[in-house]
């Protein structure tokens, strides 16, 4: 699996794609594989605020509940409504159709501490040992 180079990544296996001041956030392919069949997603509402490093929702698989953490601070401007009826999209399209939320970034500099695709792939390799 090659991770999209235009994304940045967290140690908790979220990705963010920043376009101007808006970040689109999701979970990585690695995360969905670890979770297994995803059956329920709990997300904030537009207008809610998320804080970098804090949980903003949960992704539930048959076997486990997993918190998802915000890579950046900001206001939620969009929530992916497709995931309500089709949570399984997170297994098939984690980097694409199954984005979770979009956030207007409070401080773009927060992204400097995130990993590039290359760094994330190395991180995964290391964690596998």
């Amino acid at each position: 699996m090659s991770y999209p180079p235009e994304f940045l990544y967290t140690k908790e296996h979220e990705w963010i794609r920043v376009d101007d001041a808006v970040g689109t956030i999701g979970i990585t392919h690695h995360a969905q594989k670890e979770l297994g069949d995803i059956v329920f997603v709990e997300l904030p509402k537009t207008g809610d605020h998320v804080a970098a490093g804090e949980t903003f929702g949960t992704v539930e698989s048959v076997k486990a509940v997993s918190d998802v953490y915000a890579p950046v601070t900001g206001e939620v401007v969009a929530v992916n409504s497709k995931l309500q009826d089709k949570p399984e999209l997170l297994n098939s399209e984690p980097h694409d159709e199954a984005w979770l939320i979009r956030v207007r970034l409070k401080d773009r500099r927060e992204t400097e501490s995130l990993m590039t695709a290359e760094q994330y792939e190395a991180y995964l390799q290391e964690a596998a040992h």
Partner: protein
Amino acid sequence: MVGFGGWEMPVEYSGIIEEHIAVRTRAGLFDVSHMGEIEVRGPAALPLLQFVTSNDVARLVTGQAQYTALMYPQGSAVDDCLVHRLGDDHYLLCVNASNTDKDFAWISQQNSQFGAEAHNVSANYSQLALQGPRAETILAKVTRTELPAIKYYWFTEATCCGVAGLLARTGYTGEDGFEFYFAPAESERVWNMLLEAGRPEGLIPAGLGARNTLRLEAAYPLYGHELDEDTTLLEAGLGWICKLEKGEFLGREVLLKQKAVGTRKKLVGFEMTDRNIARDGYPVSIDGELRGRVTSGSMAPFLKKNIGMAYIPPRDAELGREIQIEIRGRMATARIVPLPFYRRPNRTVASG
């Protein structure tokens, strides 16, 4: 892979949902070699087993098995298990992996007043479970044994995939199927041959995750969840394996008393009315008051609902009654429904 009762076990192979659906509609193959086996023999075997278990062992004939519980004096279970009658004065118990040592120690301790031969023979057995509507069709390809002759909860000596063993029509999924007990030396070969034979029928390997969702839909108890040392068999809804008239056995007094005056709690099934999933251990409230706890809860892949079981006061256990379950700090609504959640079509009732 996860650690489970001292064993490394696969949670899933291709995915819990896919494996679960396969078992309900075609077949799945489980490696359940982690289960424990205890052999009991001699003239004192029957008296010992009658004393330490709840069901009536004397009703078994050779080739027959029964579901039962190993008992504590307080009317609760040391473990739930199967007893197979291999012959006169010769029995084989199949027990939960995580309780094998505890069960054997308990049986040995009780045995001091009986003097039967009891051995922990778990190391001598691998066990595979082939479960699903196509299980018999698949198994017929790798054995000469007449499979229709093996009735539900009966077993026979059989050779499958060229390996001799015990073949039982038992299982933990709520589907038709078989469990094969055999010496571990050729276990990989048997596994591979079964998968190969079953491939055209849509057989896939299935792991612990699906094993749990399948037994939950069928409302089978799991020790440590619906059963533990503080829960009597009547509270767990297992009165049907308590043969109080068979004579003295551990816990009989407590069960007789509860039959007369009622139980402290009752196991109920529920269905979530919201989209949330209630999980093991979550608190249950009724009328705004904490009244119990979820014992097992999950999304049910075949029924496509979120279901679970919980212990609540008997007076609250009305079908259709609304209950609240606390899911990570927020209350979600559920409704009490009858058990089991799932019953397979054309099921024949076990005799004995």
